[in-house]
């Protein structure tokens, strides 16, 4: 066990955990943030994605000690149901969810992608999102939601 301080969603937290613990379990169980989800634990699906220093990271294979002092953003840090982030709003407006278990991976990766690529083509979106799995087959709506999110983000900027 080791004391580790984490900066999550703009707040600092001290946790006492095995430093090899993947970030996912610390976020979920110690900080009770349910946005990041366990899908595979193997970096194969994206359900556990979080943003670390501006990049999308698979928290299921990221030991917690490696992200100390870095800025971590989870799905909760983007927005709330009362005040959703542009990407979340776009997904709501496209009703781009079935069971929703993959949505953390979709929203987090779309957000980071749009930060870097404000004017994506549909093909860009498909290529970038390809590694993020959705078993419910919500892909067509997710693609449309990301196109819509790009417009929302531009309108805000």
């Amino acid at each position: 066990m080791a004391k580790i301080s984490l900066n999550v969603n703009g707040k600092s937290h001290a946790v006492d955990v095995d430093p090899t613990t993947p970030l996912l379990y610390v976020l979920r169980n110690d900080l009770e943030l349910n946005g990041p989800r366990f899908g595979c634990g193997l970096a194969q699906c994206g359900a556990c994605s979080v943003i670390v220093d501006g990049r999308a990271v698979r928290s299921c294979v990221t030991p917690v000690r490696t992200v100390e002092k870095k800025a971590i953003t989870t799905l909760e840090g983007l927005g709330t149901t009362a005040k959703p982030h542009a990407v979340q709003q776009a997904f709501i407006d496209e009703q781009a969810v079935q069971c929703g278990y993959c949505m953390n991976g979709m929203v987090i990766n779309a957000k980071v992608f749009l930060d870097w690529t404000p004017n994506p083509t549909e093909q860009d979106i498909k290529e970038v999102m390809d590694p993020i799995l959705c078993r419910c087959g919500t892909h067509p709506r997710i693609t449309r939601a990301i196109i819509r999110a790009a417009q929302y983000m531009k309108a805000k900027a």
Partner: protein
Amino acid sequence: MDKRNQKSEKKQLSRRELLQNTGALLVGFNLLSELPLTAQQQEIPGIGAVPDGMSSYPYANPDYLDPTVLDSWLSVQADGMVTIGTGKVDIGTGIETAIGQIAADELDVPFERVRVIMGDTHRTVDQGRTAGSQSLARGGPQLRQAAAAGRLELLKLASARLGAPVERLVVTDGVVSVIGEASKKVTYGELIGGKQFNVKITATGIQGAMVVAPEVKAKNYKDYKVVGKPIRRVDLPAKLTGEFKYTSDVRVPGMLHGRVVRPRNVITGTPTVDESSISKIAGIVKVVREGSFVGVVAKTEWAAIQAAKALKVTWPEPVHKMPATQEAVADYLRKTKSARDATGINKGDVDAAIASASKKFEAEYHWPFQMHGMMGPCCAVADVRGDKATVWTGAQGPFTTRDRVASMLKVPKRNVVVNFVESSGSYGRLTADDTSEDAVVLSRAVGKPVRVQWMREDEHVWGPKGPQQLQTARAAVNAEGKLIAWDFQDHGLPWTESQGTPQLAERQIGVKSTLLGNPNGANGGGEHYEIENHRVMGRTIPWPQDDPSPIRTSALRSPGEPPRVFGSESFMDEVAAGVGVDAIEFRLRHLKNKRIIEAVQAAAQKAGWVSRPSPAPASDGPIAKGRGVAVAMRINTIIVAISEVEVEKATGHVSVKKVTLAHDCGLIVNPDGLRGQLDGNIMHGVSRTLLEEFRFDPSGAKSFDWASHPVIRFMQVPEVDVVLLNRPEIPPSGGAEPSVVVIPASIANAVHDAIGVRIRQVPLTPQRVLSAMQAKAATRA
């Protein structure tokens, strides 16, 4: 549980505040537990309370909420909020929203003022499992009738209060007023809020077959205001922000974490376990062993995961080995005597007609074992205390889970409370609720609540599989190019898991299952065509599982039908091509049902189908293009798919470019929700047709993660074009799964159209397509 409690969306937040401010004065016995729930929420953040349990069962049969009591179905609060309790559950398809729409319509209250409690065994009526797209088809009318009975009682109360006969009353947004005397009015909340109806209604039969309040007349479909509207799903905002709580987010005080240890192979006898192998891992509470069951309980999830991985377990060599190949299973299917035959249709004399015909066709089609592959592996929390237990699960049959757990613990059913908490989409997978049993075994061993989530490998290897299937088909045509005989036989396996059979943990601790299991159905063999001599049979070949095996079987989205329709609609295409007639024209020759004909025409028109025989003329260049159609009818839902594909000639790689789908499921409750479901079915169909096969050999499972068992991804997603045929005069017949059944044949037919080669086995992998092309070239040469 009631998911809407979790919402903090504006409307819903204020609703929740209201709830708390009024002291949650919900009435109706099923909903009484709301009272302690609010109080206990502090202890168990966000998730339903640990009910003391039994006080919610006040009726004749202490194990079930009484469906003949109106208060079992709904209640009205002082502020006019209506709560509907249903034994149906949302498995990611939006049923919660659809049920809210039905209740809002029938009660004349705004949709926002209805909330739905789903699947908690101590406070909802058992309406049967959520499966087979039957939630709206069967559960819908039950809830509609209960709501109509509620409305009638409210009108009677209003009549007494306002001194006007019921016939002179109207209801608008939960306010009853006298026609022509607008000042005479009273709200639902004022009439009953905080009190029970104390009224009996009729309910006969059980579960899905229950008939509720037939004495009450529900509204005519023409008067629906909320049903039929593209209402936004109530669960979505919270699912996009992390506020929604799935099964895997349940945390109860003192909860420990468990993981199970299972091999990749058949489990035989008792393994040897070397506990010293995990002595270095901190936080281990116990290694739990019972029969062949092995699990670990730890203080943290990571410790449990590490321990389950590191624990040295030596499994005895399986006595009953897994089959060598898929072909070996096919051989078993061909040669083994059926335990039960289901007849889809049997008309005329098929054998005689084929014997005397001059033009005959014959073919055999193959479908592999396939998995559900939930994105989030299954998960449950169990708290076993003495002779009582509480379970939190996303099971599609919470009452089945309750009954299994009670039987495991040898306690009365009412001692077990199962709380439904939505899980990752399950597509039939959670009709077999494995993790609840795992968690019960572990919790009983440590005397504390235990959460178990399967790892990815557990889910891939041990999740039950959709059965392997094989179809034999024969047909004969006359000189006019019309079918005179059709003989279609499906050889499939029953569901060894899921219909109330003991699950994995129970088997491992020594409970034997002697049941055959539910047959995988017979529909989808072309019974909707009009043919003089016509036979469609479904044979159930026994699948005895003396020891737990990774090829245990269960219901997978539209059970048995994607394989059967793959066979029957491929065969229909073979015959059409064989007589040189356009695939759609040939089908229309044999269709009489007007709804089906209209759906076929709608799809053809939308896709711009040009009439010509298949295959398409050979093309130059590296890519061959083709189009294919498939038509089916599943429990009154009609689906027609037209797929357009490209085949890379050098590699055999198939890509689906576009799918056009015509869909008629009677009355459409929520068109936007339905369109989302259809997207999902199309993607699922493409994935299962091109990519998916659960692989194994005698050494064990060969599909154990997303790398060894890929599924569809964004780059493989086709364009989708959907035509919805709304028939408000016909009761809704389900949209969450029928459309998957037509996708495989439409793709295989399109591949044939493109390259002139018929692939009779799924998945259509590049190797399979390429070798079929090479074989054809060789026979030509």
